[in-house]
């Protein structure tokens, strides 16, 4: 039959990218996660005022990012996968922030 023409590279999107993450990398990530678990517990005992929840969420987000990039391989995946992950968190943030905007604004003004 004819020669195969696949300009959009539908059939092999990864194009031989079978990047295997080494156990050493995993171990470093593991250690980081344990470390930051300790940090977040410690931070809860320090009075940072309004920043306590900010710090806690920042640490949790950092841990999540590290799990996503390395344990879940996203760092070495296609742009499509990266975009998909981003889209998920974007929609989650829309749910949280836009709903919250109603509650936050209820006490404003006296219309």
């Amino acid at each position, binding site marked *: 039959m004819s020669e195969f023409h696949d300009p959009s590279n*539908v059939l092999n999107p990864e194009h031989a990218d079978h990047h295997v993450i080494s156990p050493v990398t995993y171990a470093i990530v*593991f250690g980081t996660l*344990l470390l930051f678990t300790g940090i977040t*517990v410690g931070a809860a*005992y*320090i009075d940072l005022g309004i920043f306590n929840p900010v710090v806690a969420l920042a640490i949790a987000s950092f841990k999540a990012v590290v799990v996503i990039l*390395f*344990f879940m391989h996203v760092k070495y995946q296609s742009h499509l996968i990266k975009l998909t992950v981003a889209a*998920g968190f974007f*929609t989650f943030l829309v749910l949280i922030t836009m709903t919250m905007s109603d509650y936050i604004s209820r006490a404003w003004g006296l219309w």
Partner: protein
Amino acid sequence: MDNAIVAAHTHETAVAAEHEHIVLPQHRHHFETQEQQREAATFGMWLFLLTEIMFFGGLFFAYLLYRNWYHDAFVVSSNQLSIPLGAANTAILVTSGFFMALGVWAAEVKKQGLLVLFLVLTTFFGVAFLGIKAVEYHEKWEKHHIPGAHFNVSEFVNPPVNPKTGKLTETPLSPDMAQKTQVFFFLYFAMTGMHAFHMILGIGLLFWLTWRANRGEFSAGYVAPIENFGLYWHFVDIVWLFLFPLLYLINRHPGY
């Protein structure tokens, strides 16, 4: 493309010569290449995880709202949770995730024995997590802190005195605000319960995958089920990484 009879288009002729061509027994006929099948499966699993993000999202929003509305009650209720148990559980779950990642590596480098070992360790730590959760839930049952007819707020209105210092162990709440501790505990049970439910499903799948791995199904190049289950397991881990500080670490700094 006409209705004329043409030789069937096989995947051997499909691909340019320089690409290494894998033919696995698990290759499904509607995919042109194994690579396409693997990428599609991973993409499909990520889309499923997006649905999970949005599913938990509703609970996270409810938590955010009521923590703002009833902050004092949330602080006091959160202090009822045990940090050593919660932190231990976090470490346990992270360890479980570590072993899962190593399991994926073992499948990729085709080491069957290691794969089975890592899957077993993943399962073990997952079960340990649930065990500690059961202990925590039991403690809540004993103290009448499970929302419903038997919920008891007396400890929040009249906190016990620390015998050593003579001071109250916790800020007392007005009866009104003390009732709102039930909202915290409802969210605690709903969120950790939903999380635990996902863990139980995952452990069930782990048993199945371990059995299959033991038969050599994933050590000959077909890694997609291990990879994609790993994605699910890490996602459940990430949910806990947020639940722990949000539920256990709201305000520990008066040092009660």
